[in-house]
């Protein structure tokens, strides 16, 4: 399909020595292809010039400008991002300028996705051209021996639009490892400000865990000793800083009080205790306040489940009958949608499983 009028590339003297390569969508084989794609003429023209310069592996200013033009029309075109990175390195461009430009693209892209598309389209997984491009640039030690100063602020502006954006968090995690930022005050204060504005931000909780307890050796992992210990024990640290552990448990408590049914700080606290090799029993009095004397004023199913685990943890705390009674409350009254899960746990206690 040829554009009807001469496009801006076809009429540009700068591009006159290039013979565009039209899209081969299989239709030249004679059959009407299953998935032809209707393109805007401008897009079709630009990509036909892209194919031509890519075929020559041209590293030039005009090719760079062409990639920008295409990205503006379709930032999801993953091939063009790869080509752009190659050109930037080949021409030794200032990568800080590129990051500035990229900040605008990313913010606009995120916004446009939210405005143009139904939320359902937004959740479709795909390649992440612009975020990956960023990582390709910043991973150049030669250009970025240390964290570019504007990076945390840029990430916070991304989080302003979507504080749980999975790919932005994953990228931030990569930054922490790449520049060894576990103890950076900025990392922790950003996480805290995000949790202050939304205590239910599970992504921020995960990032906090990673900063405080994530393995720092060359092999990244979500948990300490994730491959060396059996499934029931992994997550346990070799060396425990009890002060950090106590401070983190206090932090979690403070957040649980604000929203007792919020799952994230409960899971966080369990992870902290596991890392420290300490039991759940030390929280007996803390969790009891969310359950009430006879489990008559339950403010949190997580507290109820925690109490069950305390009663089953060791001989000091053991109260099997009470544990079964609480599990039955969860099953019948507080969390019946997971009836079969609670049944399974009851059968475990009774030794049937």
């Amino acid at each position, binding site marked *: 399909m040829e554009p009807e009028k001469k496009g801006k590339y076809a009429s540009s003297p700068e591009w006159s020595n290039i013979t565009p390569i039209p899209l081969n969508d299989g239709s030249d084989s004679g059959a009407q292809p299953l998935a032809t794609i209707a393109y805007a003429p401008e897009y079709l023209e630009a990509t036909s010039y892209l194919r031509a310069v890519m075929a020559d592996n041209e590293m030039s200013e005009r090719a760079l400008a062409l990639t920008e033009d295409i990205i503006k029309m379709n930032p999801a075109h993953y091939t063009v991002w790869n080509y752009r990175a190659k050109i930037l390195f080949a021409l030794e461009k200032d990568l800080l300028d590129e990051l500035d430009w990229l900040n605008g693209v990313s913010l606009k892209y995120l916004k446009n996705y939210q405005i143009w598309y139904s939320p*359902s389209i937004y959740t479709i997984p795909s390649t992440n051209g612009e975020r990956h491009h960023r990582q390709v640039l910043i991973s150049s030690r030669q250009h970025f021996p240390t964290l570019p100063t504007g990076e945390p602020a840029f990430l916070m502006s991304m989080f302003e639009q979507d504080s749980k954006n999975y790919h932005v968090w994953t990228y931030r995690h990569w930054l922490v490892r790449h520049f060894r930022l576990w103890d950076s005050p900025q990392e922790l204060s950003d996480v805290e400000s995000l949790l202050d504005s939304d205590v239910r931000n599970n992504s921020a909780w995960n990032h906090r865990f990673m900063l405080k307890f994530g393995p720092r050796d060359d092999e990244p992992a979500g948990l300490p000793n994730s491959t060396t210990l059996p499934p029931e024990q992994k997550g346990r640290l070799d060396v425990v800083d009890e002060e950090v552990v106590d401070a983190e448990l206090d932090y979690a408590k403070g957040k649980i009080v604000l929203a007792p049914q919020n*799952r994230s700080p409960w899971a966080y606290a369990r992870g902290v205790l596991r890392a420290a090799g300490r039991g759940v029993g030390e929280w007996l009095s803390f969790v009891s306040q969310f359950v009430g004397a006879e489990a008559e004023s339950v403010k949190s199913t997580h507290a109820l489940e925690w109490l069950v685990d305390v009663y089953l943890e060791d001989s000091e705390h053991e109260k099997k009958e009470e544990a079964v009674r609480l599990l039955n409350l969860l099953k019948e009254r507080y969390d019946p949608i997971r009836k079969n899960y609670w049944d399974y746990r009851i059968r475990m206690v009774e030794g049937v499983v």
Partner: protein
Amino acid sequence: MTLASSPSRTPTGPQPGDLYVQKHVDYIKNLDSRRDELEYWLTEHLRLNGVYWGLTALHLLGHPGALPRDKTIDFILSCQQDNGGFAAAPGHDAHMLYTVSAVQILVTLDAVDELEKPGRGGKHKLGSFIAGLQDKETGTFMGDEWGERDTRFLYGALNALSLLGLLDLVDVPKAVSYIQKCENFDGAYGIRPGAESHAGQVFTCVGALAIAGRLDLVNRDRLGGWLSERQLENGGLNGRPEKLADSCYSWWVGASLAMIDRLHWVDSDRLAAFILKCQVSPFDTIPTLGTTNAVQDPEGGGFGDRPDNMADVFHTVFSVAGLSLLKFDGVLEVDPV
């Protein structure tokens, strides 16, 4: 995802609350005629995946012939690049995601032999493309030569290679060890080591372990507990704590639970009811106001991410696959891996 067994029966005449099989079949068949829509050409980078999603949904709905087999194969082959891998659409770079979809489509259509035709290089060339993307140090897989790493690629690689009988081309134990590093303090898995737990990534990690025969490494009770907590009061499943339910997690969560024998830990009646509500039904003829998209297709068909949202092929296949896991009448049974 492959078919596990023969069809059960198809329900008769759509009633509110039913599964509108014919509407969904028509919806998928007509996807390609919506080329004038902006979203269509902006989602070019998903085209090959889209064909896979549509085709799989049609197979599960018992209408495998609704997309023309020959044209589908022609399109898939037109996406193959010189390095043996497949791109999202003709003229793009080869990438793991689309290569895996291509293999799944060719297997579904019983057309893997097409690769052996002159100029295609055979299934070994394709397998070598995938194997070449394994990171020899860590065991994970990259999406393409640019090195984005994601457990989706790892699962996809093992899935495609096992379908082709070529698993011996890669270092499976190393891949398994990488997956273990993706486990988090909450007992679930993320996209890379240290990344937040996410139900989609749980599926890719558990699926890869299942293919590798290493489900013994999973703490089933803990992971099953986390997965069952994804069910919300409306019956639907979310992908992470404190997020909204979304129909596609019916598959990601459901299949993960099925692989560790704990699917019954969610309430299947309430889940099925939620999925059915995500259908764009022939009874909804009024555009949904207040959402970002102004008009729904009055013809209906397809599934959206949640009730009253627009349909798309991605949520359609994973809704149908979710119903399949629940052994819903009118949907063929699926293999959760």
